[in-house]
């Protein structure tokens, strides 16, 4: 049984988290479980099933929305047992300290799930209004793999550049998307089905490109990990299968952080995704050849 990806969405109240979730659920062709503090706007009128540690509301299209009523770790285990989702998204309230959740995911839950991406929604307009970055805001930015600079309709491109520069001082490794109303392609942000970009609900012009690598050679694990750690900033996601030393793995890479999970395969098959991925394609493929 492969581990289930779990992504975290954080951001201040009013930054656009709920809008983002609605967009994700609208476009999703995977079974997603959204875990939130309360059902709120997502599961209006849904029938709610009360479990021991979690309450689950079924949404149209097979996805579910859940609210935790017991201990976090137990709730996630119960969710997986009952629903078996393909992706779990945790929506933290505008104020919670999400650091703690990350820690639970990486320690007590590490047999079942892996941290896919921490996505932080930054309200660009709010960022200009309040020049001092608050404590919670800072924590949210620090932990992000992906930052959505949202409400781009309310700021100019040059203002957005300034904000990005400031945010990068706190977190230099995160990957940026600039959005209006959190409109972003579900497949792009989660790296699903990238080979097939004919997705539904396509509103935003996607500047992300992708390429893939395939081979049958076994690579040296230490060399491959060195390669991963040095991936250029153009690549925000890489996923697929790899043959390392005597074993084979499932690879998940997001903005500098990666996970290798044992997985049966006889092929190296990696997809690289990012803004300007095309430009670094040759270089990356060349380095990969040296990992053998």
């Amino acid at each position, binding site marked *: 049984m492969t581990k289930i990806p779990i992504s975290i969405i954080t951001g*201040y*109240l*009013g930054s656009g988290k709920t809008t983002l979730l609605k967009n994700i659920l609208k476009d999703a062709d995977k079974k997603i479980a959204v875990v939130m503090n*309360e059902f709120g706007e997502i599961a209006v009128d849904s029938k709610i099933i009360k479990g021991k*540690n979690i309450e689950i509301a079924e949404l149209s299209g097979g996805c579910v929305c859940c609210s*935790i*009523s*017991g*201990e*976090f*770790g137990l*709730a996630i285990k119960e969710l997986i047992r009952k629903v078996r989702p393909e992706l779990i998204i945790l929506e933290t*309230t*505008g*104020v919670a*300290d999400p*650091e*703690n959740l*990350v*820690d*639970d995911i990486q*320690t*007590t839950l590490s047999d079942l799930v892996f941290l896919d991406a921490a996505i932080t929604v930054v309200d660009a307009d*709010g960022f200009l*209004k*309040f*020049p*001092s*970055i*608050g*404590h*919670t*805001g*800072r924590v949210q930015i620090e932990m992000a793999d992906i930052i959505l600079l949202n409400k781009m309709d309310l700021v100019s491109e040059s203002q957005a550049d300034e904000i990005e520069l400031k945010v990068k001082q706190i977190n230099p490794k995160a990957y940026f998307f600039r959005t209006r109303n959190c409109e972003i392609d579900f497949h792009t942000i989660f790296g699903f089905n990238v080979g097939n970009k004919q997705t539904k609900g396509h509103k935003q012009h996607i500047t992300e490109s992708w390429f893939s690598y395939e081979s049958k050679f076994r690579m040296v694990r230490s060399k491959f990990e060195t390669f991963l750690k040095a991936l250029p900033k153009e690549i925000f996601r890489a996923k697929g299968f790899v043959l390392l030393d005597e074993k084979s793995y499932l690879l998940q890479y997001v903005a500098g952080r990666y996970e290798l999970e044992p997985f049966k395969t006889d092929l190296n098959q990696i997809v690289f995704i990012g803004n300007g991925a095309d430009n670094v394609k040759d270089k990356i493929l060349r380095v990969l050849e040296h990992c053998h």
Partner: protein
Amino acid sequence: MPIPDFVKRINDYVWEIPVSYKDGMRVPARIIASKKLVEEMDMQVYDQVTNVATLPGLQKYAYCMPDGHSGYGFPIGGVAAMDAETGVISPGGVGFDINCGMRLVTTNLNYDDIKPRMKELLDMLFKKVPAGVGSTGFVKLTPQKFREVVQIGAKWAIENGYGWKEDLERTEEEGCSKFADQTKVSDKAIARGLDQIGTLGSGNHYLEVQVAKPENVFDKEIAKAYGITQPNQVVIMFHCGSRGFGHQVATDYLNTFLKVMEPKYGIKILDRELACAPFKSPEGQDYFAAMNCGLNMSFANRQVILHRIREVFESVFKKSAEDLEMRQVYDVAHNTAKLEKYEIDGKMKELIVHRKGATRAFGPGNPEVPKIYRKYGQPVILGGSMETGSYLLAGTKGAEELTFGSTAHGSGRTMSRTQAKREFRGEVLQKQMEARGILVKTMSYPGLAEEAGGAYKDVHAVVEACENAGISKRVVSLVPVLNVKG
């Protein structure tokens, strides 16, 4: 970190950041701490306390107590008093866990009496006082009933048989803030708090059985007045707040304030976490009324927990709580904003005093201090880390003169929760503590690691700074022997 040049030493325990430090500061910021404690503070504390100093109507200084560290908007350990007529009220200055606070109870048992029953006592306390993130209590209430609870606070608990009448007299504001108005509280907040009466919650919340060793009594007369009368006396201290209810009240009004602050009232702030509204505005008054419901919910919560603790002791020691003399010493709030009167430039003024991770510390003679303690000053219950112990202090006139009647509330973190979990392992910590005579039981080992003594400042240094600055006086220090970790 060495103390930066912009932090000026006023005396050994008072440090000041002048208004010239940052555009928009209305008053200087003051940190009450020893040199060493200031050195342990991070840059964010300076940034936050000076952001607070820009808020409209702020009087004298924006303060940070010796246990200060960075928090949501205000530093934790922040004290700010605004003119009630012209100033603002800010949820960031109260905190999300409204009236997170401490309660201390004495017994007539001594350490030898409980030694043979330690395990049994711990297991039963753990069972009867639910802990953990989503913990729910034994009190089942309808939304309508719960609205009554948040309206009248601990009084509701007493009326329903959860405690003694004298408990109320020994609670800040007698456990029932008169400024509460449940009609200002959202249904969502009610829904989140409904089944949480009588529960500890998680994070830094705990219940401890402690011992007052004779060598740790600093002032025998006041200790006696507070009920610490015999060597190695057993006391119970616990720390918890308004759970999901207070959190939702804060969230609701932060949202409201962010919408009206600039468009309606023309208030510009540096950090959105300091969202505020004029205290006298409809929004400000509504938040004040709802926040006081949070205060009452928390007083009721601690009252029900006290009732459960008495039941546990009765069952383990086969004696009534009265026979065990399980009297409440006091109950103090940490996260509040209160209307209090102070002399400013020779005139008495009504102020809205924000205390965020700070304790009220009224001195002898203050009419707000219960009659039985008025001669000595208000009891201040200061919770240290679970490894190092806690303190019972007395409020002072000095606090009323220097810090709007406020002092520290705990030891104050030096390490983030994540960092603490990297440094310490819960299982190991539990064993180490057991070897030192502290039995601990927890819902979560990572949660236990977060609370390691090493993640906190030295509580003794914090208390010493408070005493030397004149904002409270040491009465007795208390050593933990049992800990239920939330």
